[in-house]
């Protein structure tokens, strides 16, 4: 905390390099089963981080982030199956398509604020889910398999999938940090904290929000496509399941909304809880909900908020030292 700006960014850069190398060599040492679990952890972390970015950095709370998870998966499956393209090459296209979808609905949903905004995106997710459930060409309720990867070498698919998921998690940490320190990150924070003041210092509030919403949508879309690519099958009930929202919320809230580190802790707790309580079904979901309630009452900044407050330990701090202080 006392370290000055440049040296702190140097530490983060070193950490980024170490993580990069560690992730790059992981598939050589890990069994395929564990690789699959890691893909799941990384993609779920990416989902959570997309929501964290939206809620904690852009100041837009959405209850419909599962919309982009499902859209990303369906864009990928449909295009890959129709043209027989290797799905890995389609991920940039998924980003663009999900971003475009977000851009298309933004002008309308931006008219609503707070909870109404949050629920309007959920409504859109429901419309898309119900539409896909009825369309036979999209597999209706039973969903679609991913054809192309069937004929490919299993190990190659798993390892490539791992690299994509790891890349998303890497971006979720270091990309978010990098973005938060840019001019646009500063603008986002200003808009989140006080719209009026942000506008007064010359920030275009609407476009800043728009940028954040589109980026979060595109990112969640790619993460959703990666997740469903690793299970080779997608169906509307699962891809647009509001329980995705429950998971994202739990991870971000428990960890600490608006921090880079919080969702890392949140994801770890989530997967540990899931391993311990597997088979208890509803009890486990109830616990996730109760944890969110308690966090809101006791420590609205989450676990990471407690750590920062008590120990002043904030490796990914994006706040700059005040120029007035000595």
């Amino acid at each position, binding site marked *: 905390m006392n370290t000055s700006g440049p040296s702190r960014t140097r530490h983060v850069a070193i950490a980024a390099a170490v993580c990069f190398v560690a992730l790059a060599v992981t598939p050589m040492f890990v069994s395929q089963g564990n690789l699959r679990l890691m893909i799941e952890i990384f993609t779920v972390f990416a989902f959570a981080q997309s929501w964290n970015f939206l809620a904690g950095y852009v100041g837009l709370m959405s209850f419909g982030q599962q919309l982009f998870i499902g859209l990303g998966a369906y864009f990928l499956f449909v295009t890959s199956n129709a043209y027989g393209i290797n799905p890995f090459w389609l991920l940039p296209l998924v980003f663009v398509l999900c971003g475009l979808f977000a851009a298309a609905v933004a002008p309308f949903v931006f008219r609503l604020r707070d909870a109404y905004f949050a629920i309007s995106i959920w*409504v859109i997710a429901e419309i898309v889910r119900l539409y896909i459930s*009825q369309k036979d060409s999209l597999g209706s309720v039973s969903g679609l398999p991913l054809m192309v990867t069937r004929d490919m070498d299993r190990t190659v698919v798993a390892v490539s999938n791992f690299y994509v998921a790891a890349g998303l998690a890497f971006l979720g940490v270091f990309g978010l940090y990098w973005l938060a320190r840019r001019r646009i990150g500063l603008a986002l924070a200003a808009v989140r904290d006080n719209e009026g003041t942000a506008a007064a210092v010359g920030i275009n509030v609407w476009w800043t929000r728009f940028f954040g919403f589109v980026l979060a949508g595109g990112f969640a879309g790619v993460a959703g496509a990666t997740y469903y690519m690793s299970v080779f099958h997608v169906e509307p009930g699962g891809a647009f399941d509001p329980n995705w929202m429950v998971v994202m919320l739990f991870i971000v*809230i428990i960890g600490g909304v608006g921090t880079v580190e919080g969702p890392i802790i949140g994801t770890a707790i989530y997967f540990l809880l899931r391993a311990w309580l597997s088979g208890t079904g509803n009890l486990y979901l109830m616990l996730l909900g109760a944890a969110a309630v308690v966090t809101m009452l006791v420590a609205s900044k989450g676990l990471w908020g407690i750590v920062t407050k008590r120990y002043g330990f904030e490796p990914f701090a994006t706040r700059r030292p005040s120029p007035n202080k000595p």
Partner: protein
Amino acid sequence: MIWLETIANGILLGGLYALIGLGLGFAFGVMRVVNVAQGDFIVAAAFIGLYLYPWTPLHPILVIVPVALIAFGIGILLQRVLINRVLGHDQIPQILLTFGLAIVLRNGMVSWFGANSQSINVGNMRFWGFDFLGMRLGVLPVLVLVIAIMLFAALRFWLNTSRMGRIIRATADDHQVVQLLGVNYRNVYAIAMGIALALSAVAGVLLAMRGSFTPYSGADRLLIAFEVVVIGGLGSFWGMFIGGIVLGVTQLVALKLDPAGGLMYGHIVFFIILILSPKGLSSILTIKAFRK
């Protein structure tokens, strides 16, 4: 003729939808609190009704009275114990709190009552019908609409004429200033939340009498409530009523055209209204409907 009958039935259903939205809209109008758990409270009320109606004297439909009273109490508790603690300029904590509550409620109901579809049995009344202008209408749906209209009117009347209603409207206008006049706005909020949940509980029980419900119905109910409030924001207090009727008619007409569509067309109509209305929707951000 069949279409006229469908539309008439849509209007009857719409009155009930409006009632679902009223609780949410009222809570938001007074406190700017959006209770995301509203849908699951509606389902919980239906379960309470399911267990109470065999003991209800005179007629099963009167079960709405004890359920509303219980919901009123729960609402006061909810506001005092939980929501009042996270109130503030920032809306996010209370929205997340109620979202967490919704998850707990929904999954709690699944584990206690099972995921089966249930319905409150009102006896033969379900099959009674009468002919009106050549249409065959059910007695129960008409009765439900009448109850909805009465509750709307009663709430409006009570807000406009009673002392408590005046205090609630004043608190909705400015909860800081009313404190200067000796009003504890937290108590007013608790009462308002009690009323909001009582209204939703009545809607939940009536919905369970007209159709069926499962512990998972809460999400759909919340979306309906939300759509009613947003469409209703176009006008006034009664705008919500129109919102409910728009959704009710849409749903039944769509059901005739495309039986598998479910709530999709209702959602689409809502979204079209959202696109078309130039700036009317921003009026839900004001509490105009609850000022006089």
